[in-house]
């Protein structure tokens, strides 16, 4: 039964963070788009942490924003506590994070979806895909209806055969209290895709009216909350604090005594969980010497009493959860509104994808988010963005959009997914980005906004503003190279800042490379149109910031740039899709098997596959050259 009312270009399956960005990008690029969700009232829901951003994840949000995504704007409108993390470190690892009002965030995103041209939202469950000659042609709904479309983006989250564990109790669910998605895994397997099982978990939620916040340490946000989006001028939302407390030895004793009913330690859970986000019971078992673990009470929103107990993810049984929570200072009388739980779900090995997030075997079928084994709202949104953009480009017959590792965290993410064999939930870290110093949250626009404009996802004015900023940065750097004030004048300024003086004339540019020397030192102190020019305004503040970072860290940036250049040659060395590795006798059996299966896009990608040695790469180069 084909519903003939409309023919769509792109069908997005799932209304989570990946699905929202994919649907918006595709619709904004002019594609007739439909988004299927099992429940419209749960679109853009945050089933775990009430926060967006964080270390490395904040970078992703900035990049999504520079490309013209929605996540940054949505959190700017609904964030209730903004913090720039790692501020004591250098600018490359600063990362924005915001507590979100969960309900408002979801509504804000729903509004964006509803207000978007070319985009329909439909509540239904997708149970399969239709294909013809290795090309996707539509989706099947659980009601038996079928929808024709030219591309499909699957963003299934934790729904595929989802199974929730609370102690030894278990029930089938996509998230707490929601139906799982049944049928789609099996349908995809019948199309030849290989699937695996992962596990993740979440802590209990606490009724705020039963908590003694006075005994806890208060954690406020930044006084000058900085927006995620390049297009947000100011954070206007009311800001609220989080609270810090910690587990006690009693907590640990209770948890240890509950391990006999832990699904994790009794072998009920087979899915692989994330090592970077262990449940509280795992922390206690693995690090027995640690007598206390920090916990954060994070508000779930402005209009709810509920707190998220960060640091206390657990799948222990209900009674143990309650007892353990009540052994924490300030939580002695706490009531749990929702239990912590673990959830197992199906994912598909992302080595079956191209870097565009399109499957290698079926044309115009894209996977994004947890279906690829990632975790995190931001990781999901980034993939959704890439899938949505690429589906649209491919339908229009345009070149695919692939970000390089040297260009963006999104490039690192997508490249890691397709080359590494993902066997535990994948999360972004700054240490995964070998070009970390250049991939900063402050310069995401420099790196990506031209692309956003090219795809029509960034409007003309936003782009023009950015181009002006970019011009000014170059101009000021050049001027600072030429500006060499009198020594006496400079020394006066340096002395006041308790910095060592100069014996020879230096340009301000050279001077800025010294530790402790900032542009601010010279503002208002050196009478030069340059400094008055860099004075007021948001634009100028961000220009000044960029100029300073570019000059200050030039040495390190150059080191990285050289590494990037070195890699770029290999990055640009593409391997034809049909390349037959098995025909190369001098490759090791292991390498040959992996290369044949993963089919890397470039020589650089091939070199990142575990087990492929430098000599394999040399052999590969030789054979590629003959073509």
């Amino acid at each position, binding site marked *: 039964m084909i519903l003939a009312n409309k023919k769509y270009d792109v069908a997005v399956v799932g209304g989570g963070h990946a699905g929202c960005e994919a649907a918006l990008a595709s619709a904004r690029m002019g594609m007739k788009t439909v988004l299927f969700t099992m429940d419209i009232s749960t679109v853009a829901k945050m089933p775990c942490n009430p926060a967006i951003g964080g270390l490395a994840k904040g970078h992703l949000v900035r990049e999504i924003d520079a490309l013209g995504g929605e996540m940054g704007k949505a959190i700017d409108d609904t964030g209730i506590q903004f913090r720039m993390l790692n501020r004591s470190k250098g600018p490359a690892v600063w990362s924005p994070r915001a507590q979100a009002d969960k309900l408002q965030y979801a509504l804000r995103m729903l509004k964006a979806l509803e207000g978007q041209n070319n985009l329909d939202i439909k509540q239904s469950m997708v149970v399969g895909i239709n294909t013809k000659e290795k090309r996707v042609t539509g989706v099947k709904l659980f009601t038996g209806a079928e929808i024709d479309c030219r591309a499909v983006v699957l963003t299934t989250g934790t729904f595929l055969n989802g199974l929730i564990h609370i102690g030894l109790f278990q029930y089938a669910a996509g998230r707490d209290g929601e139906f799982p998605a049944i049928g789609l895994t099996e349908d995809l397997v019948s199309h030849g895709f290989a699937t695996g099982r992962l596990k993740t978990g979440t802590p209990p939620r606490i009724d705020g009216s039963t908590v003694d916040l006075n005994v806890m340490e208060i954690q406020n946000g930044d006084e000058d909350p900085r927006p995620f989006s390049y297009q947000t001028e100011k954070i206007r939302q009311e800001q609220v604090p989080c609270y810090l407390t910690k587990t006690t030895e009693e907590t640990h004793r209770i948890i240890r005594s509950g391990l006999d009913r832990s699904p994790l330690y009794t072998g009920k859970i087979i899915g692989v969980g994330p090592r*970077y986000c262990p449940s509280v019971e795992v922390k206690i078992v693995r690090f027995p010497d640690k007598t206390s*673990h920090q916990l954060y009470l994070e508000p779930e929103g402005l209009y709810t009493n509920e707190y998220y107990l960060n640091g206390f993810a657990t799948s222990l049984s209900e009674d143990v959860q309650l007892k353990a929570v009540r052994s924490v200072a300030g939580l002695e009388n706490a009531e749990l509104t929702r239990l912590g739980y673990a959830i197992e779900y199906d994912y598909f090995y992302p080595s079956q994808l191209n870097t565009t997030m399109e499957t290698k075997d079926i044309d115009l079928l894209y996977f994004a988010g947890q279906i690829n084994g990632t975790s995190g709202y931001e990781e999901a949104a980034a993939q959704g963005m890439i899938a949505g953009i690429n589906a649209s480009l491919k339908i229009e017959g345009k070149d695919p959009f692939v970000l390089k590792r040297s260009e963006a965290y999104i490039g690192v993410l997508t490249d890691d997914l397709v080359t590494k064999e993902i066997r535990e939930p994948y999360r972004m870290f700054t240490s995964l980005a070998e070009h970390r110093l250049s991939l900063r949250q402050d310069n995401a626009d420099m790196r990506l906004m031209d692309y956003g404009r090219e795809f029509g996802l960034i409007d003309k004015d936003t782009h023009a503003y950015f181009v002006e900023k970019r011009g000014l940065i170059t101009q000021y750097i050049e001027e600072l190279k030429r500006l060499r004030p009198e020594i006496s004048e400079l020394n006066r300024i340096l002395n006041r800042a308790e910095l060592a003086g100069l014996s020879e004339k230096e340009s301000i540019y050279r001077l800025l490379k010294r530790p402790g020397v900032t542009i601010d030192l010279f503002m208002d102190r050196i009478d030069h149109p340059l400094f008055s020019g860099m004075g007021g305004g948001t634009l100028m503040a961000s220009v000044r910031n960029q100029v300073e970072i570019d000059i200050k860290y030039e040495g390190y940036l150059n080191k990285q740039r050289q590494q990037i250049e070195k890699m770029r040659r290999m990055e640009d060395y593409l391997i034809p899709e049909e390349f037959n590795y098995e025909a190369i006798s001098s490759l090791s059996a292991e390498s040959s098997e992996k290369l044949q299966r993963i089919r890397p896009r470039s020589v650089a990608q091939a070199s990142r596959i575990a087990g492929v040695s430098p000599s394999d790469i*040399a052999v590969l180069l030789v054979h590629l050259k003959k073509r």
Partner: protein
Amino acid sequence: MSTGDGEDTIAAISTPVGIGGISIIRMSGDASIDILKKVFKDESDKGEYKSWRPYYGSIRDGDVTLDHVLVTIFREPKSYTAEDMVEVSCHGGMYVSRRILELLIRHGARPADPGEFTKRAFLNGRIDLSQAEAVADLIEARTEAGLQASLQQLDGKLYENVAGLRNELISLCSMMELELDFSEENIQITDAEDISARIAAVLTTIVNMISSYDRGKIIKEGIKLVIVGRPNVGKSSLLNALLKEDRAIVTSIPGTTRDFLEEQLDISGILFRAVDTAGIAESGDIVEIEGISRTRRHTETADLILHVLDASQPLTKDDHEIAERMIERWKKRDTSIVCVINKIDLDEKIDIDSIAYGEMNIPPVRISAKNMTGITDLEKAVTEAVFKDRGIVKSQTDEVVISRSRHLHALRRAQDALEDALLGIKDSMSSEFIVVDLRSAMESLGEIIGEVTSEDILNHIFDNFCIGK
């Protein structure tokens, strides 16, 4: 111009080197002619080099002439690699060739990877597919040979030490990464002084390794090996057997200032200068006496002495006298002695137990130089003597000796990077900058023992710290 993956200039001793032959050092890349000009003094002194023409002159390291050589220039694209190339033909000798190679590297060339010249030739379209297939196999074969070599004693120890350093760097990196990627986790922040001290310790070890290359007897001079024994026990044939066994021997240099013929040979990657006392000791009376006193002088400066006995004859007074002298030297702990029982192909009449060699660290080795039997055992014993017996390769506790220029090169880059890291810490740079240098150091060490990935660092973090709030 190069379409290959490297535009830098590479250099290598072109193998194989035949016995007593001439050895060729090759360079390929844009800078090869410039590098040559820095070290080559052209006899005709014209300073202009035409392609495809040999030039005679000398290779000079500052004021020191390393060797008189013939140099041929091939300008791109008409060269084997289709890049600018230089071939230096020298009078052979692993020692001389390596020093020339070193010199080129010091002036900007990079040691070539196995098969790299051929790879460039192919990538630049100089050779065709069937040749390329052969190259692919060659690269693989040579990598395997390299792997085997690395399992040998010398490299094994190097591997162990470099791996230790790399693990320390991984640990340091993960501490710093922890601070960056998990700063919200309430984990104790690392102490800059402690990090500095640990980096400095790694640096010291690396600097020691580097200087072991600079001063190491192994590369610079070779280990002085003297063969002694009364006439007719087969000293010459033993030396010839060693030379024949090791095709890596390079040449005989008639000693102009030396009293004896000196042969260079390469046993398990170690360079030996073998002093052949045979010819002189067995000639006429006066010369013989002269020879004996010179032999004595040589044995006194020897690092390793092979005392050759004849299995087919009972021990003579001379054998006993020489043995006593040798054992005395050995007891003084500055020379290693290996007793070699030759001619085991004949009826055995020797009573070896009457000499105290059995009590020494390295038991006597039985060979037949004539039939080439036992030579491998002898080489093993020699290697063992070098490393274990008296520590000829002078090692304070765990010192590792660097013998390959590729390793030296990698270590120097690691040194630079670690020095930068220390400077960065001194300037209070944040961890992510320090990590750039630490990673670059790890990358350089990785060229010796294999790559470190981001996963290695994250795994280290997950294994050692309680993550996840």
